């Protein structure tokens, strides 16, 4: 069950990343025909991030201690000491930026250049932070794997 929870966490995190990248392009071409889609997808990106956060948070609080012990005994202790420690706190900022996205999308993007500019920065921040979280997650998984390999 833990593996399913962890895969769901990654799935929703990647869905948030992909949605943010989609939105970046959609906002570049914002007009009356895609405005409703931009707003719906902004809510979608926020929803994906909340799901990733809640599922990942549940796993972190209830199951991570086993992985942590394995990582700390292995050759990559930094996968916890540095990578997980930063990930668990940077992800809170990603959640807030993703939550801000539908708020920013409520402005009139077709008529306001400034509103579009803000949306582009917000979607770019989400995509970059989500990519960083994805990479950190990979390092943490690898920290467990290298600890379990025969030496």
């Amino acid at each position, binding site marked *: 069950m833990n593996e399913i929870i962890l895969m769901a966490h990654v799935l929703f995190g990647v869905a948030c990343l992909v949605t943010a990248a989609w939105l970046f392009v959609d906002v570049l071409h914002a007009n009356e025909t895609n405005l409703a889609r931009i707003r719906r997808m902004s809510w979608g990106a926020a929803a994906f991030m909340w799901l990733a*956060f809640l599922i990942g*948070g549940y796993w*972190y*609080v209830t199951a991570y201690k086993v992985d942590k012990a394995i990582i700390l005994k292995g050759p990559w202790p930094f996968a916890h*000491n*540095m990578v997980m*420690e*930063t990930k*668990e*706190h*940077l992800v*809170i*900022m990603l*959640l*807030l*930026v993703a*939550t*801000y996205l539908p*708020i*920013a999308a*409520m*402005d*009139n993007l077709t*008529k*306001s*250049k*400034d*509103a579009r*500019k*803000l949306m582009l*920065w*917000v979607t770019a*921040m989400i995509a970059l932070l989500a990519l960083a979280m994805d990479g950190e997650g990979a390092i943490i998984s690898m920290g467990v794997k290298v600890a379990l390999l025969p030496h």
Partner: protein
Amino acid sequence: MENTTLSKRTIAFGLALAVACVVNAIIVVVKEKSEAVMGGMKKVLGHHWTTHSAIVIVLFLALGGLFGLARGGRGVAMTTNSLIGTVLSAVGAAALIIIGFYLFID
């Protein structure tokens, strides 16, 4: 005709985002450096990270509402470039504090 203004809600929650991110980084440093704070946070919601997340999320929502009520309900006045600069600086500084802390200090 292009409109160059942002809504008061967008400015208010943008500023709230900036403040909440910096507070997030400050809490990291304080709880890691103080056993009493860490212990207290564990007691409140059962895990320090859960309490930490709850504080930052509630702060973001509360400040967003408060900044929207500033100037007699007209909200905080700010240009788009200032808002973007503030948010990017805050997110960047908070990320550097967190990464720097675990890389060099903790």
